[in-house]
């Protein structure tokens, strides 16, 4: 069952992408994508937490009694989220304010728990670590894809730099909640149409 690193990454980022394929972790995916920079920071935070909690869960997997493993996983995840929160508060308070409670909500992001439970619990530390990174990157890619459109249409900027002239009329609608729902819905539509699911591919249906 040991997959090559390349496979882990391809699955995590494209075929089994946590957001548009497994519909996990979409709370924060919707909330922070009104600006590219927020999405980027959130993605980095998630990559850090997912990879290190997968690593830790995997290291402890032979010493954790199975009936308390959920609680142990939650505590491990919380510990890493606290690190992210403290670092953000100390070095980038403005970003910490902008993300508000959504940093703390990384704990209940189902992607991390899902990877710990489905992969790290059964695999060696190093593959688990990379599996965590792959899922995190898959999450960040989707976030950035949504954010590019929302920030561009909503503010006419990318990473806060204006890319269109004064003639541009902002689509305020895109930075409000409905814009997020529509963008994610359309993205899932595109992904389902053009990126074949794994089992279909194995069946030779391309």
């Amino acid at each position, binding site marked *: 069952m040991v997959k090559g690193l390349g496979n882990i990454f391809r699955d995590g980022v494209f075929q089994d992408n946590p957001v548009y394929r497994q*519909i*996990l*972790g*979409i*709370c*924060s995916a*919707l*909330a922070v994508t009104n600006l590219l920079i927020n999405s980027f920071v959130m993605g980095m935070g998630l990559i850090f937490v997912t990879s290190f909690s997968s690593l830790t869960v995997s290291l402890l997997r032979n010493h954790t009694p199975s009936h308390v493993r959920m*609680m142990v996983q*939650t*505590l491990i995840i*919380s*510990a890493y*989220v*606290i690190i992210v*929160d*403290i670092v953000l508060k100390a070095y980038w308070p403005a970003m910490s304010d902008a993300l*508000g*409670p959504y940093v*703390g*909500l990384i*704990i*209940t*992001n*189902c992607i991390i*728990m899902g990877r710990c439970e489905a992969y790290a619990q059964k695999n060696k530390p190093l593959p688990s670590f990379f599996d965590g990174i792959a899922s995190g990157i898959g999450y960040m890619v989707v976030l950035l894809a949504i954010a590019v459109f929302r920030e561009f249409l909503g503010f006419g900027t990318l990473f806060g730099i204006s890319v269109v002239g004064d003639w541009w009329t902002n689509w305020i609608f895109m930075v*409000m*909640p*409905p*814009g*997020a*729902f*529509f963008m*994610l*819905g*359309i993205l*899932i*539509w*595109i*992904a*389902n*149409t053009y990126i074949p699911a794994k089992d279909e591919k194995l069946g030779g249906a391309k």
Partner: protein
Amino acid sequence: MEINPFTILIASIFTNNMILANFLGMCSFIAVSKEIKTSLGLGQAVTFVLTGTSVINYLVYTYILEPYGLEYLRFIVFIITIATFVQLVEMIIERYVPTLYYSLGIFLPLITVNCAILGVSLFMVIREYTLLQSLAFGIGSGLGWTLAIVALAAIRQKIKNAPIPKGLQGAGVTLIITGLMALAFIGLSGVVTIQ
């Protein structure tokens, strides 16, 4: 922060709806909203747990964490409180109200990982609510969540036989509908505003 608790209650149901304005609790929102009856059951359970945990977390935060300067531990403490509360509620309901237990049964454990619950506690801390305001916020958020999920379930039942393009079926179209609902709720934003 002298907002009337009643204002918070109304605002968290309509204008600051947990799902439609803050995107919290989306996972179960998409997964469970296939039938009105189950949605209502989950909504009740969420409202109940939200009301309880917002008060408990407020007390824990104000009287234990803050005096000792342990605010940074709030994530761990809140999640433990929520998990314990859900476990306790499950045991009490099973013992005394078995009929309710069987109707809520499967949903209760799911609630621990519902981001709306943790989200309400975190918002409460960030916005520096008082006890009464937290209680109103908890109840209102729960009711708002229930309202949104039941409405979505009703819409989804109506369009069950609609010819939807293949790639859009399931999660895709559900998100688009949610977007339309959010759009409709923005129309109410003039009624009350809190931040």
